[in-house]
């Protein structure tokens, strides 16, 4: 729902790095976004295309790497992936323990850009 302000922030960072590198054009932008985020990739790209018109980043492709949601079992210490939008309960696949703590899956990060 908030892809527009997020895209503005992405474009700002991308243009700053592209200008510092004296690039002629940005080809792609690689992002790392956790599965806990509700950002929809397709809308990121649409807003990016709209906002980047007339800038060095016009026409660049966004590549989104989705980071899995990871929990750690409080029983046996095993870390395991949870498909957070599909499961009804979070249970350790190794020991069946019901208690687990959240480890990661909230990433919201720009990794790199490709420029010419």
């Amino acid at each position, binding site marked *: *729902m*908030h892809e527009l*302000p*997020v895209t503005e*922030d*992405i474009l*700002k*960072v*991308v243009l700053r*790095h*592209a200008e510092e*590198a004296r*690039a*002629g054009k940005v*080809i792609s932008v690689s*992002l790392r976004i956790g599965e*806990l*985020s*509700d950002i929809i990739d397709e809308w990121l790209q649409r807003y990016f295309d709209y906002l980047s018109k007339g800038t060095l980043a016009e026409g660049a492709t966004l590549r989104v790497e989705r980071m899995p*949601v990871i*929990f750690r079992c409080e029983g046996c210490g095993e870390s395991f992936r949870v498909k*957070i*939008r599909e*499961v*009804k*309960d*979070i249970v350790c696949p190794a020991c069946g323990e*019901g*208690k*687990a*703590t*959240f480890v990661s899956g*909230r990433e*919201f*990060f*720009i*990794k*790199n*850009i*490709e*420029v*010419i």
Partner: protein
Amino acid sequence: MADIRLIEVKEEILADNDKLAGEIRERLRAKKIFMLNLMASPGGGKTSLIIETLRGLKDSVRTAVIEGDIDSIVDAEKVVQEGVPAVQLRTGGACHLDAVMVEMALREMDLDALDLIIVENIGNLVCPAEFDTGAVRNVMILSVPEGDDKPLKYPLMFTVCDALVVNKIDYLAIADFDMKVLKERVLKLNPKIRIFETSCRTGEGISAWIEWLKDEVMNFKK
């Protein structure tokens, strides 16, 4: 053809917002003002809980309210009727408050006359979870009619909050809502979260919430 170069960026997407939120937190800490960010769905009872809280704290804590709303001022008017200063932020369509908007509201407030600022965020369980407002505590309301499955649908919101107020418990008798299951789901996502059960309509559970908040504000001021 020109060579393609790879430039390492390695920056948080919301770095600018996070930086400003950190500055707001430091500034308010220096002034010993506790700022609370209250989030919920539309109709969850944010304004009702704020009104009850203002009444409960009126003799002990100097409070002001920042009201986020897409396009109206009715909530701010209710707060002002309680004799408490309010700043209305009309976001004009934005689905959340961020640090820049909170900063604008703070400029309109007399910060030397306050112990507590309550930020009423936009009614939405998705976007406000992603944006740091500069508050020291995040609190969310889940109202009983919304259902006990919300931690599964909006997990991020439940992971960023320090307290959960389960409101409208007067509906429990007629709702298909399992409090035990809800608590298990929430505590799994966030074992440190404090959970309160309230009804702003009957007043049940409100005093426990107010006592907790008062203690948090007083400990912060020490």
